[in-house]
């Protein structure tokens, strides 16, 4: 822990990213207390510009809804979808990568052809197809993003595992009588954690962006406010009140940048080679 803190103090951008991400997370968790009630309710006169009214710091939209309340509640959807989809994608990716890299041969070939196929279909087109088949909803969005984003992790883990398989460490473990599962999980996985975490942070960032695009197109969960649906709300107002579309976009950018920076921070902290 002290090592982590020491590294972070040197790396200001990573620290800033981590702090911002924690802050966005705190706002998301606290949204029901910060802004009780439905963020879809009208609270004031429509189209109040930001910084005009102290009670409504970010102004209101076409229906007089508080933009700040929308952002806070939208953060819940963005972060939930981002982290849940990434967790599922990384889990599938690590499993597929381990199986393909460890067993090689036919298992490897068939798993890699499936990976090729999923990677060949544009993730967003695949997500659209899944939404059309399953109907819109948070669960569909999470599944759609997870299905299209596990492939990168699978490839990296496969390459790492197949290179580790040939090393002395694994031979030594075998002599000690360890089984495949134990070697994979207790010996190899900890050693390849840092590229996996870099990838995981990229997957979270992409998942947040894909969720916003789906809900911008009106294909997210119709019952929930999300940053993408708020931007869609502002689309028709560019001429009269551009801030309605601009503000949620800035929230997405801040969150995604801080996810990327925080990913670097966690990687640096976990890298055992860097530890003295």
């Amino acid at each position, binding site marked *: 822990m002290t090592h982590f803190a020491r590294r972070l103090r040197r790396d200001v951008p990573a620290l800033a990213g981590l702090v911002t991400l924690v802050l966005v997370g705190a706002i998301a968790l606290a949204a029901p207390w910060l802004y009780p009630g439905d963020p879809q309710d009208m609270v004031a006169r429509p189209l109040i510009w930001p910084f005009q009214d102290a009670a409504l710091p970010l102004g209101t939209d076409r229906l007089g809804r508080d933009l700040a309340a929308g952002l806070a509640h939208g953060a819940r959807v963005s972060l939930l979808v981002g982290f849940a989809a990434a967790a599922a994608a990384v889990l599938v990716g690590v499993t597929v990568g381990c199986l393909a890299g460890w067993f090689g041969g036919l298992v490897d070939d068939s798993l890699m052809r499936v990976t090729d196929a999923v990677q060949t*279909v*544009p993730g*967003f087109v695949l997500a659209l197809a*899944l939404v*059309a088949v399953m109907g819109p909803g948070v669960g569909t969005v999470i599944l759609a993003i997870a299905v299209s984003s596990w492939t990168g992790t699978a490839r990296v883990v496969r390459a790492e595992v197949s290179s580790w398989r040939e090393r002395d460490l694994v031979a030594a473990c075998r002599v000690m009588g360890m089984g495949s599962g134990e070697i994979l999980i207790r010996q190899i996985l900890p050693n390849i954690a840092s590229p996996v975490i870099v990838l995981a942070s990229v997957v979270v960032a992409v998942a947040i962006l894909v969720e916003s695009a789906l809900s911008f*197109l009106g294909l997210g969960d119709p019952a929930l406010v999300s940053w993408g649906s708020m931007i869609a709300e502002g689309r028709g107002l560019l001429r009269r009140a551009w801030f309605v579309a601009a503000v949620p976009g800035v929230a997405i950018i801040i969150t995604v940048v801080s996810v990327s920076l925080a990913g670097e921070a966690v990687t640096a902290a976990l890298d055992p080679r860097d530890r003295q």
Partner: protein
Amino acid sequence: MAGSPGTGSRGLGSFLAAAWPVIRRRLLLALPVLLLVACGTFGLLHLAPGDAVDAMVIAGGGGDAALASELRARYGLDQPLLVQLSLYLLRLLQFDFGVSPVHNRPVLALITERLPISLLLMLTATAFAVSLGVVLGVSAAAAAGRWRDRLILAAALVIYAMPSFWVGLMLILVFAVTLGWLPVGGFETAASGLSGMARVLDIARHLILPTLALALLFVSVHLRLMRAGMLDLAGADFVRMARAKGVPRRRVLWAHLARNAVLPVIAMVGVQASTLLGGAVVIESVFSLPGLGRLAYDSVVARDLATLMGLVVVSAVIVLTVTLVVDLVMAALDPRVRLR
């Protein structure tokens, strides 16, 4: 010989012969991929509640059960699943993607009508992203560690985090709504009666903003790759040799370093082909461009699964084709690829 009509084609012919191993490897990889994608779309169609006949009956405003079962027999929908899968694959082999119950037209016709617009947008965005990415990457690498480098890297980080549809809206806000320089959307001015060069210019004006919005993400990817490639090669023997010979700094940077560092960037264009096509889907709906993206969006809203699955298969074909083209470009630029 130079300038004689035969030279070009014979040159291309011998190049293709030399690059044949590259082409063959790609085609061999493409076959199982397409088969799996087709099986995937078949599975998705079966997961969905209702089948193609239900969709037709609903689109036709309801119908009787006898007609529905007759249609099912005609399309083989009453057969066992494995037979249906083989029938489906056979139809795909003949480029038969079925009929869209919403448009009441063959899916293939719907797709081929809209394909050129999406391909054009992907092409302009790639050209822009690669050129700007290369220039910024070289510029950052030349100032490695100094403020210009840091500024470019910070910009890359922020650009990567911007949702492309939001960038599109902000570009519309600035250049179309506020300044009035460029059109808000569409592929060309409706009923303008323009032809020839005037029409080309009109289309180009309509494509500027969508191209920018789609390309920005890839500018960020390419510039980081270019910068890393330049820094990797900076200590290579041929670069030190050039410096020792007294080749001017700028020339070393562009003629020696950049020419080699650009190869991974071009390879990246192939890797990113599927992300690019996915991005085009969103951008087309922001700028009301009547391409594949619009078709995909309309199909989701209308639950037109036949068209949507056709789009999934066609986009896989597009991505595979782009990868093959990028491989050939790599083989043309880098003899090592041909010899591999």
